């Protein structure tokens, strides 16, 4: 399958992009600062004292895993929302570049199926998102594991939920680029999907604000299909903080986001298959 070849090309392309160099550098710097300046004193599994750059943080003393649960929850939100916004801007021009005159003709003349080009691009961006989220979360886990003795995969799992949330957003961005080759449009669509994803998470609360009739029906119809990104972020936070999570709700959210992403990607592939270049 040539999909992987396309993916590797995208990753090679990303390697030279300043966005991703900046992200990698920023995460590394953040982890280094945290690792070198944060001092934790753990007594019998309780976080007794913590110092950052020598200054005491005056934190309450409690079980280290409970204390770090709050830290991981906050970090998960940062990874989710920060990562999502970063991804929307930094990945918006991969598809337009793929479709640029001179490049797309060359690629289509190679023995690669059209859907493999799109799928490979999508997979490449997914891998970038995974790598960024995993790097940050694993780094945090290692730092707090070594310093506090709290070893858990929860930060990594919650970071993976951030990637699950990015899937439908980027699928729509990619599809938009197939219809109109524009990085600005692509990132605009990503922003709209993100905003709708947050609003849709509160549709139960917002629905009664619409008067019964066309307005409420339209809002209901428009939002029933959108991924509930804010709910997914909450789920990610709960998972990171070791709070109880409903398996049914989690699986439905994750499955819904994946199905939406796959559906959007297929619309993009359909248009790509039909289109002349």
């Amino acid at each position: 399958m040539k999909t992987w070849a396309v993916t590797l090309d995208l990753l090679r392309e990303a390697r030279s992009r300043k966005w991703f160099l900046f992200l990698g550098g920023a995460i590394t710097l953040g982890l280094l600062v945290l690792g070198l300046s944060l001092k934790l004193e753990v007594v019998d599994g309780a976080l007794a004292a913590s110092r950052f750059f020598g200054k005491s943080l005056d934190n309450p003393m409690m079980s280290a895993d409970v204390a770090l649960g709050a830290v991981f929850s906050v970090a998960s939100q940062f990874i989710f929302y920060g990562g999502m916004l970063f991804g929307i801007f930094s990945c918006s021009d991969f598809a337009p570049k793929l479709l640029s005159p001179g490049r797309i003709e060359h690629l289509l003349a190679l023995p690669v199926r059209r859907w493999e080009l799109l799928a490979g691009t999508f997979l490449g961006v997914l891998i970038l998102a995974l790598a960024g989220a995993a790097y940050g979360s694993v780094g945090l886990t290692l730092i707090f594991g070594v310093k506090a003795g709290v070893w858990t995969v929860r930060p990594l799992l919650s970071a993976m939920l951030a990637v699950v949330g990015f899937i439908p957003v980027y699928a729509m961005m990619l599809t938009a680029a197939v219809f109109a080759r524009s990085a600005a449009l692509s990132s605009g669509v990503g922003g709209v999907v993100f905003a709708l994803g947050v609003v849709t998470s509160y549709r139960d609360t917002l629905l009664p604000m619409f008067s019964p009739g066309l307005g409420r029906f339209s809002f209901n119809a428009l939002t029933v299909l959108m991924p509930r990104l804010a709910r997914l972020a909450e789920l990610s936070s709960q998972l990171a903080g070791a709070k109880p999570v409903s398996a049914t709700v989690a699986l439905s959210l994750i499955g819904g986001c994946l199905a939406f992403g796959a559906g959007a990607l297929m619309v993009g592939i359909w248009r790509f298959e039909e289109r002349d270049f």
Partner: protein
Amino acid sequence: MDAIATQGLFKTYRRWLRRTGQAALDGVDLTVPQGSAFGLIGPNGAGKTTFIKVLLGIVRLDQGQVRVLGGAAEDPKVRARIGYLPERLHLPAAWKPAEFLHSVARMKGVRVTGPELSAVLERVGIAQAKDRAIGGYSKGMKQRLGLGAALLGKPELLILDEPTDGIDPLGRVEIRHILSEELQRGATLFLNSHLLSETERICDRIAILGGGKVLRQGTLQELRQVGVCWRARFQLDAGLALPVDGAADATAQATAQATVQMRTAALQAAGFVPAGDRHRIVVNDAAGLNAALDQARAAGALLTELVREEKALEDVLAEAMEAA
């Protein structure tokens, strides 16, 4: 088996959800024999690039049949046997040339080693810049790299759109040499170039595309034979005795001059047009040439030189467009 066989190709570019549009191909029938070097020429907007894209499945046909190397262009297995150089090749600026070639090889399913890639770069003449990023290449260097990518995997069919665009004259010689090596290997060459002199040098078969239709196609000889031009030198005063001394008979001189004029008129009547100290005639075949010569000789003109003038491809193209 023909390398390329098309029948009744129609393609109109329409905007999305619109019925009318711009017709790019208007019934194209074309055959490219395997192992030949085929050139496609025509004015801007004739449909040459569309035709090439149809061959490769980059553009979807409205109507017609296309067979490339015996199969459909949509079949990746067929495209794996084709090497393509597009007119405006966009190369990733941050990559090194070997990385680009390696990427193309991977997509083609061709295993290449480092030394093999270096050999390709050497062959296309950019080995000295192999450690430089593509973004720092000149247009000609990028074109050479694109050609190198097209040659990967020893393709059976090479489709080259303006292959020497941006390349210096000496570089063009190198490119022609590479292409002739590929021809000798058994590959079929399909070339689209505005440089008709290059097309004449490389191709043995040519098609002229105009207004989305094939206006003429055949070997270069066949195309040039329509309206061949001959250049002849006649001695018009042959057999006329002219006095040696100065006290020439005026009557004899007048008779000689009248004879030369008569013979000149006969040449013009036969179709010869004066061109300096020679005459030119355009005939369609050998019979016409012989008839004109007979007529001239019957008038007493002595043929001292006969040279066939090769018709330039520009002329062939211009004539075809005018006829269309």
